[in-house]
């Protein structure tokens, strides 16, 4: 029986090639969209779940309030791990991690490595990163032991066995390779190329609550223990706050526990890499389902539309004894067959677009992933579901007709035309919604990209500064300044794109204290970043002398610059602030107030900031280029670098690229959204195209008669497009308020955002109407030009 159904289905597809093709492509594109988004979501979802003990691992984050601002950070001091492990029996082990870009050298090979971690000895037993060589329990159990990944082994040692070989880290320390790890999978919040033993760090010798630079993970004995442990930690830290830190009033410090598997999707606090917002995954799931629904709707619409042509067959089958069930099964199996073919095509499509999608979504999916049994089963399940969604309605309608009527006059749908219209409206609501959402997202991103942040970030090259470079900082800086094409060189602790250093600042008069972000910098920071001084002046010669490291640590005097927000937080106008004495560790005067600039993501408002001169803390050098020929300027910089710095290679970044990187999540979502809104509208048009075709066939007699009566081509076009255009208009009315609500909601997440402009809605409406109209015309114009006599003859 099934074989008979499939045979008939196959022959039917062959007979209606165009219809089958439209359905096949539509479904395939819909399924491809689902598949791609499915892969993406699955990957995000699988984050960190591969660790065998994932359920029992928690990340410790720090929450504190030392003044009047609540601070939360994923970074903790060195004390947290060992202290909690000693004190609380719920914990079994701890791992502290420090990510620290290092320059590594073996023989004549030297590279700067960004993915260099320091980790406690339990690292490979708590986490399930497989070791190819070495014992997980002992590879990191002593200072200067180093585990490297397989690909790094190849990079530094080629085919030679690296175990026992030594690598020079940071120019002076010799590490011995004690193990080889498999390359870390990319669905992990911890990514590494190298893991050095934590005990190699000087910082490991002393346990401190402050100086939070480390991620701390705890392995619990029992996953249920997390709440008990949390309560104990809160209680314990209250004691510590009172007894050790002398905190009073509202000030407090505590630690929060986050289950490892929740960090990537739910945590607001980034560790060594940005987290994903789970809301984006929900949005993507919705997009995937909507696209699939649009494709299903096409199938449903086309099947019922063409059912008129099959009424004789259905009637006859009933005469021969087929029941409702048999007819229903026949049409469902027809849908299933088509969907199976579509799945095949979709897998092909997916493999074709995968490289492009990877780029868009920032993933590294391999095509062979699609051939895994898991995906295969999922696709099979998906096929059944899609076949039922798309095929049920036509099957019910077609199997339900009365035989005597079918045989006499064929199928006439009174009920289903309104459903069909509803479905078209639905498709266009989704399409218009996605067009509007895409435009607004792109606008906001371009707003971010071009936003005047209050400092210049174009053509600014960022160079790393480490302890050895600091020794000859001024020499190197002066050499760079004199290079052709260089406008200015300045330095600071970190990049102005994201200033993370949190601190406190107090006034001498009135003894007011505020929580503040701080940026240690050199004397040229104002001119290098084009900061605008609203009151006071730039650092003076005497300021520079007072802060000269040569005077020795204790004799340095700081000079401060505040931003407007900091001045107002201290209760001063910019003018009032000048010359006031403030203290951040040590006392100094306020030399200038600079205009507020965005030193955090645009998701957040601008907070208080203090800039102070301390060249010993410079960690990055900013080289502002002036010339047009950036390539030759870079070549100059490289030449100077190589003359003066021989312990690390010349590696640079551009400030504006680093800025862009902060909005990666948004950029990816924008890319995916753009792609899929194009797909949605294409699918909707495909459906409209085919439906118009059927309407033309149905109305060929009417059109013929009208033409004989003198109707022009335009009249005919108006006649047939009227119905469909009406539907698109209804869709516009529904889509506009929906999309307005959705994009407003999204924009709420940005403190600095665009206004939603009315023309976006107008443009999306006009665009969708135009596309729909053109689609209809493409089909209708043929009929309209057709010789009416022919139309009538075929009746």
């Amino acid at each position, binding site marked *: 029986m099934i074989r*008979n159904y499939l045979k008939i289905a196959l022959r*039917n597809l062959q*007979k209606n090639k165009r219809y089958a093709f439209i359905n096949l492509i539509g479904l395939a594109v819909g399924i491809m969209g689902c598949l791609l988004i499915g892969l993406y979501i699955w990957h995000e979802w699988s984050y960190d779940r591969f660790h065998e003990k994932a359920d029992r691992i928690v990340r410790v984050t720090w929450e504190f309030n030392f003044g009047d601002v609540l601070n939360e950070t994923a970074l903790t001091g060195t004390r947290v791990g060992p202290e909690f492990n000693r004190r609380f029996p719920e914990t079994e082990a701890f791992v502290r991690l420090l990510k620290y870009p290092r320059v590594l050298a073996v023989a004549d090979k030297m590279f700067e490595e960004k993915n260099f971690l320091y980790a406690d000895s339990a690292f490979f037993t708590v986490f399930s990163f497989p070791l190819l060589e070495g014992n997980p329990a002992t590879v990191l159990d002593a200072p200067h032991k180093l585990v490297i990944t397989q690909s790094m082994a190849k990079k530094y040692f080629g085919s030679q066995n690296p175990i026992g070989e030594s690598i020079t880290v940071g120019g002076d320390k010799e590490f011995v390779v004690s193990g080889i790890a498999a390359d870390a999978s990319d669905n992990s919040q911890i990514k590494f190329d190298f893991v050095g033993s934590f005990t190699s760090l000087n910082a490991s010798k002393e346990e401190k609550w402050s100086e939070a630079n480390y991620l701390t993970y705890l392995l619990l004995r029992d996953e249920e223990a997390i709440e008990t442990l949390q309560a104990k930690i809160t209680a314990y830290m209250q004691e510590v706050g009172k007894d050790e830190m002398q905190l009073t009033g509202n000030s407090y410090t505590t630690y929060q526990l986050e289950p490892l598997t929740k960090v990537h999707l739910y945590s607001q606090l980034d560790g060594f890499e940005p987290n994903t917002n789970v809301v984006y995954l929900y949005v993507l799931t919705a997009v995937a389902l909507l696209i699939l629904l649009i494709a299903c709707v096409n199938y449903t619409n086309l099947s019922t539309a063409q059912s008129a042509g099959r009424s004789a067959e259905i009637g*006859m*089958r009933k*005469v021969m004894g087929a*029941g409702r069930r048999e007819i229903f099964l026949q049409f469902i199996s027809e849908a299933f067959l088509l969907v199976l073919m579509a799945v095949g095509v979709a897998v092909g499509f997916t493999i074709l677009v995968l490289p492009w999608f990877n780029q868009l979504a920032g993933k590294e999916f391999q095509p062979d992933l699609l051939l895994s049994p898991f995906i295969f089963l999922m696709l099979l399940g998906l096929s059944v579901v899609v076949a039922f969604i798309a095929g049920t309605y036509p099957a019910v309608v077609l199997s339900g007709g009365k*035989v005597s009527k079918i*045989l006499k006059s064929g199928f006439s749908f009174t009920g289903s035309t309104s459903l069909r219209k509803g479905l078209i409206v639905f498709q266009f609501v989704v399409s218009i919604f996605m067009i509007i959402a895409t435009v607004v997202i792109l606008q906001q991103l371009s707003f971010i990209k071009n936003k005047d942040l209050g400092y210049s970030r174009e053509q600014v090259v960022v160079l790393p500064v480490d302890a050895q470079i600091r020794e000859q900082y001024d020499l190197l800086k002066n050499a760079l300044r004199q290079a052709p094409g260089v406008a200015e060189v300045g330095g600071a602790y970190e990049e102005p794109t994201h200033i993370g250093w949190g601190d406190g600042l107090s006034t001498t008069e009135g003894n007011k204290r505020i929580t503040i972000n701080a940026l240690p910098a050199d004397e040229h920071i104002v001119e290098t970043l084009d900061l605008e001084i609203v009151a006071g002046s730039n650092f003076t010669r005497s300021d520079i002398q007072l802060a000269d490291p040569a005077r020795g640590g204790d004799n340095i005097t700081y000079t401060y610059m505040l931003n407007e927000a900091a001045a107002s937080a201290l209760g001063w106008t910019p003018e009032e602030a000048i010359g006031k004495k403030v203290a951040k560790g040590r006392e100094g005067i306020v030399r200038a107030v600079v205009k507020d600039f965005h030193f955090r993501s645009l998701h957040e408002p601008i907070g208080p900031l203090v800039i102070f001169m301390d060249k010993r803390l410079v960690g990055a050098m900013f080289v502002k280029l002036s010339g047009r020929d950036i390539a030759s300027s870079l070549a100059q910089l490289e030449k100077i670098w190589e003359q003066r710095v021989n312990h690390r290679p010349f590696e640079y970044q551009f400030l504006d690229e680093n800025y862009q990187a902060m909005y990666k999540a948004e950029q990816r979502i924008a890319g995916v959204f753009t792609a899929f809104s194009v797909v949605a509208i294409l699918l909707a048009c495909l459906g409209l195209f085919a439906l118009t075709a059927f309407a033309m066939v149905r109305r060929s007699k009417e059109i013929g008669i009208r033409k004989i009566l003198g109707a022009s081509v335009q009249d005919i076009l108006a006649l047939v497009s009227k119905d469909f255009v009406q539907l698109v208009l209804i869709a516009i009315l529904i889509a506009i308020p929906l999309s307005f609500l959705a994009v407003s909601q999204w924009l709420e997440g940005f403190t600095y955002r665009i206004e939603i402009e009315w023309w976006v809605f107008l443009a999306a409406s006009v665009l969708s109407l135009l596309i729909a109209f053109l689609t209809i015309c493409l089909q209708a114009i043929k009929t309209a030009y057709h010789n009416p006599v022919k139309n009538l003859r075929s009746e």
Partner: protein
Amino acid sequence: MIQLQNIFKWYNTANRPTFILKDVSLTIDEGAFLSIMGPSGSGKTTLLNIMGMLDQPSEGSYHFMGQDVFNLKEKQRKELYKQYIGFVFQAYHLLDELTVYENIETPLLYQGVKSAERKAMVGDMLDRFRIVGKKDLFPSQLSGGQQQLVGVVRALISKPKLILADEPTGNLNSTQGEEIMQLFQQLNKEEGVTIVQVTHSEKNAAFGNRIIQLLDGQVQD
């Protein structure tokens, strides 16, 4: 075999009933060859469809082989239908996507006949009507007469006791028409199959052994 009593059939158009059949009572014995005649719109096809259980009257009762058809459950009625009734149409209504062989086989599929048995039954029929050579052709490759022959064979495959034919020769030329009529006559005489046909042609009606005239939904005696 067939007992129709006081059959009415009407449609409501603009709140007023339009009668298709008005008080038709009719008894047909097993082994009869009945021709229903009458002008277009007189209700011939509707009557035939009611006999064939494809349509239901607005009023009246119908006994088929002693069973009260309209008081049966849908499933039982379907069984009765599958077992005893075969239909032949003016427009043949062969399934275009199926070959001759598959068209003939389809009713057996719906009756759940096993594959081997199906093969034997279809083979027999193809043999008997000398269309073995055409079994792999599609309907569009056959002449009208040949198509109607396949239509009749398909109606016969489940060995029905009653064949209902709605203008079976309406689309055929006279030679082809006569061949089909002779076939009906032969089935009726040699195998005792009851035949009810709707026809416009006096000549075709004469092949049967009883004629009734319908006019405006009423039987004219």
